[in-house]
């Protein structure tokens, strides 16, 4: 899922200050699960803003949009969005942009910092697992992604900074290539490591420009 975290309250306060009628739009998917932008967090933000110095006169309402990355769900709150002076989106970056695109004259304020595609490892603890690079090589690396989990995203690791299975940039960070080595060893596939992975084609990554996916069986439009 997409993991996000709420911006510092003061940053949000500065952005909402000029507006009177505020709509806080929670999002019901990823950011609900990672406890950053669901209904609970939206209600909490509403209370915090209501208590903030100088914001006493604000009229704040909270709505939950099931998926801010789907137009139909956003339009369910059409009336409330139109009535608001500004919308505080608690969706990920995609959600914020999609609301802004549908309401181009409206100020849409992001309440979250979108962090990564990751997993839940413990209560309230998520880690990055995927960077959406567009060409998955997880089969060669024993199901551990060097692009997102190696600090240098290298393909023939580890680098010289790996020590005791830890990454040099943070002793709490496991070296992805140490993990790859250990798992390949368990699977009796260490010979995989002896092959040099050639430079990769990063055009499938963001480096090829903003990406689009069209599923031809359901999308009638011809094009990229």
């Amino acid at each position: 899922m997409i993991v996000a975290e709420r911006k510092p309250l003061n940053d949000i306060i500065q952005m909402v200050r000029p507006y009177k009628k505020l709509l806080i739009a929670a999002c019901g998917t990823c950011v609900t699960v990672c406890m950053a932008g669901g209904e609970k967090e939206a209600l909490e933000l509403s209370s915090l803003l209501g208590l903030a110095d100088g914001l006493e006169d604000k009229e704040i309402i909270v709505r939950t949009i099931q998926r801010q990355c789907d137009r139909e769900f956003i339009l369910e709150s059409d009336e409330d969005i139109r009535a608001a002076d500004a919308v505080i989106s608690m969706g990920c970056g995609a959600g914020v942009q999609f609301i802004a695109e549908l309401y181009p004259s409206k100020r849409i304020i992001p309440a979250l910092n979108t962090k990564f595609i990751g997993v839940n490892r413990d209560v309230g603890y998520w880690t990055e697992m995927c960077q959406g690079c567009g060409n998955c090589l997880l089969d060669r690396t024993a199901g551990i992604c060097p692009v997102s989990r190696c600090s240098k995203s290298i393909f023939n690791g580890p680098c010289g900074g790996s020590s005791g299975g830890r990454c040099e940039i943070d002793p709490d960070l496991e070296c992805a290539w140490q993990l790859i080595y250990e798992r390949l060893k368990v699977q009796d596939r260490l010979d995989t490591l002896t092959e040099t992975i050639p430079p990769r084609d990063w055009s499938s990554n963001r480096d090829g420009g903003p990406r689009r996916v069209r599923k031809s069986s359901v999308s009638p439009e011809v094009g990229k």
Partner: protein
Amino acid sequence: MTDNMKASPVTHSDVSLEYTSGLEREFGSGEFVVTAEIGPPRGADASHVEKTACSLRGFVHAANVTDNQTAIVRMSSIAAAYIGQTCGVETIVQMTCRDRNRIAIQSDLLGAYALGLRNLLCLSGDHQSFGDHPQSKNVFDIDSIQLIRLAADMKNDGVFANGKKGKNMPKFFIGATINPFADPEELQLIRLRKKIEAGARFIQTQAVYDIDRFEKWMEKVRRLGIHKEAYIQAGILVNKSLRSIEMTRKVSGMCIPDSLIERMRKAENAQEEGVAIALELIGRLRRIEGLSGIHIMAVGWESIVPTIVREAGLMQ
């Protein structure tokens, strides 16, 4: 720089493409090769590089020129290496993958070769979080092994990274690094193998302090026949104080026995003790079969290199 410090300057106009690495010839002749380092300055003054290079002239076969080491902005390694060669010291250009994509890397390799630089040491590069611009983006379009292969393909097949033929392609004498003390050893040896298979012809190791452990590592290297496929140089770091050796110990993957730290602690003259330790290590290293030379890292104490070389009886 005064005129008498200048020795047969190597300039781009009088270096032909036929000119090859002198360092490679030294290794090939069976010479116990000595290299040291030139750390480019944090400024645009050539005289700093000239001073270090001139002090090393005659005491080393070649000098590495570091590439924004520890991710701190310094003069370009290629520019500094060129300045070094104008002082009569053959240089080894260090190139990392941190700051350049494959377009910039290849462009820099063409430029470096045109300037008469012939030796290339390929590294991943320290992560920028250690440096003076931790806010920067890193590149790592390719990694160090892919960089070795890229330079080797230019040399052997005359092709760019995209497989297209080029004209007058650079033919660098290509080197790589290895840390004999990093774990797991099995994985490190796999990487060493990959670097050599990719095209590395000389290998510089992380600084050796634990000589017993290094001797055992070299035994494994010999058993695998690696010393016959590439020239191996042991790293020697010279410490001038207790603080210096303690800081060195904190570097990731560094292995320093307690006894050496104690010696530095108890020493009446830490500088003399640091030199004594380096000389003892060099003495042991020279007796190791399959070792082709040493690489002296005297970070912040470059002026000690001639003393070390002279007292160790190297470069005779």
